[in-house]
């Protein structure tokens, strides 16, 4: 069943690619193959392999339990939130915050995860920003950690 969905999504994606690529043309062309051919070729291949999956899906099922879906969704949201807040809150705070849901999803208690996050945020910041010269955002803690 879900092989069919995957195949269908790929066919739609291929159609979108072909539609976007069909009017790519070089203003001044000095070679026989322009910027359009390769994407169109790929769109064709993608549509074919997608269609194959729709017609001949494999039998193996891999259902996710509802509880699993909940933890997975939570972890995915945590990753997105981490990405969004990375600059605004700064590395240290964002990492400490991210570690709470992620750590708890991996079996840590609230207290443990919070401690791990705070430790990781601080230690990794000092290691990368101060020691190894990889500049990281300081965000809200700029007044303590210096920098931007």
């Amino acid at each position, binding site marked *: 069943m*879900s*092989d069919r969905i*995957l195949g269908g999504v*790929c066919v739609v994606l291929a159609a979108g*690619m072909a539609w*976007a*690529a069909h009017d*790519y*043309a*070089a*203003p001044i*062309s000095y*070679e*026989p*193959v*322009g*910027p359009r051919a*390769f*994407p169109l070729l*790929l769109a064709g*291949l*993608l549509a074919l*392999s997608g269609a194959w*999956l729709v017609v*001949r899906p*494999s039998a*193996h099922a*891999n259902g996710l339990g509802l509880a*699993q879906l909940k933890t*997975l969704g939570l*972890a*995915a949201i945590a*990753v*997105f939130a*981490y*990405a*969004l807040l*990375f*600059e605004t809150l700064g*590395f240290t705070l964002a*990492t400490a915050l991210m*570690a709470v849901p*992620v*750590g708890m999803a*991996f*079996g*840590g208690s609230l207290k*443990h*995860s919070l401690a*791990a*996050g705070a430790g*990781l*945020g601080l230690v*990794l910041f000092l290691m990368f920003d101060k020691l*190894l*010269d*990889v*500049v*990281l*955002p300081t965000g809200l803690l700029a007044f303590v950690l210096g920098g931007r």
Partner: protein
Amino acid sequence: MDTLQYLATGFGVALTPTNLAMAALGGLIGTIVGMLPGLGPINGVAILMPLAFALKLPPETALILLAAVYMGCEFGGRISSILLNVPGDAGAIMTAMDGYPMARKGLAGVALSISAWSSFVGSLVATIGIVLFAPLLAKWALAFGPAEYFALMCFAFACITGLMGDAPMKAVLAAVLGLSLSTVGLDSNSGVYRFTGGDVHLSDGIQFIVVVIGVFSVSEILLMLEQHHHSSAGLIRVTGRSMFTLREVAHTWWSTLRSSVVGFVVGVLPGAGATIASAMTYSMEKRIAGPGGTFGEGDIRGVAAPEAANNASAAGSFVPMLTLGVPGSGTTAVMVGALALYNITPGPALFTQNPTLVWGLIASLFVANAILLVINIPMVGVFTRMLALPNWILVPGILAISAVGVYSVHATTFDLLLMAGFGVVAFLLRKQGVPMAPLILGFVLGDMMEQNLRRALSITNGELGILFESPISVGLWVGAAAMVVVPQLLRLRRRRAQQPALA
């Protein structure tokens, strides 16, 4: 003769204090990453690659670090196989078959040390193989024109999809998705922006690091969440003798050597890798040993053979990457991407244009291998203690380091969000059985493939015949077709053979 001279230059590069330190650090990190279940060489190399770049390491040093991580992973995978019965990485699956029974008999120390020894021999044999064959292959490949390169890349894709388990169509799908991702951004030949949606962040293409981290770090974490609720409950404590005896070395010697050679050959082939090599040699040794062997119940050769093979194949996979510029495995594809960050395109010309890089890397494989042997025998106790590191510290740590790597390239929130997006999409694809190695190979090769196709067709003004003109390209096309067809036929035949047994 030339080769020896170049090798000497290479050792000059590999033995500088910085590069020596990086080889040791890489080996250490690699052993830990390889040992942790769920994380393999591709994850380790993917996570460290952006950091090497952010730390402004020179290209040869960065490559030495990544190569040491790769080799270290192949060493480290055996530790959890033997002590936990959970392979640390895919190449170490076979090691658990006899390693864990040995550990349960109280021979954990012996299993660990003999497997470190055979890992060392495997890497050594394969590195000598690189020294002997890589320059020859590179010289031959200098004659390749754009048409031959296009055919070669199609061959690489055929190998990786033909050998990819039971769903070749999903591997094709992954490769096409990777190739498509590589077309995003400015087309340098014509000045046309493709698939950017007018977004400035995408105008110079999708950053390789963002894709790799998303696909191999973020999605791996989500997969770990679902699969590994691994605990150190089954962990066997190392007691008793920790060193192998000379008799044990003599007993395993031929198994180790045979497996090393087979592993090297399998590693050179694009698409086949450590997993296939170790499975092949395990069953080969089992057959050779005959009824005299106790394979599956703790035969020491069953530990030595797959470990020699998986290390040899890891080293062997450097051959196509260095000589042809076409990586044969996901991990070496990531390394090609790392070199691209330094504006270096690997290929046959590299051997003459940048010998310090190529030979420095080859020499450092010898150095890293020796270092790994040293840290893996006496220090194995330190690593086993790290197996007890809880996931609630480890996983947020991996995620934070991954984000640092992505952020260090362009310092934009956009890239971080893209990383998260790729992670979730890759997770869904992997759940559906779509392999990720072809995707990364497609992403790395995409630009090169398109450029070579366009260049080849420019020569004949659009005539497709040139792609099938030279004997080399014809040979490669035939090889590619065979790689796709033969595994299918074999599978069909096996199914036929099984059916009467069922009926």
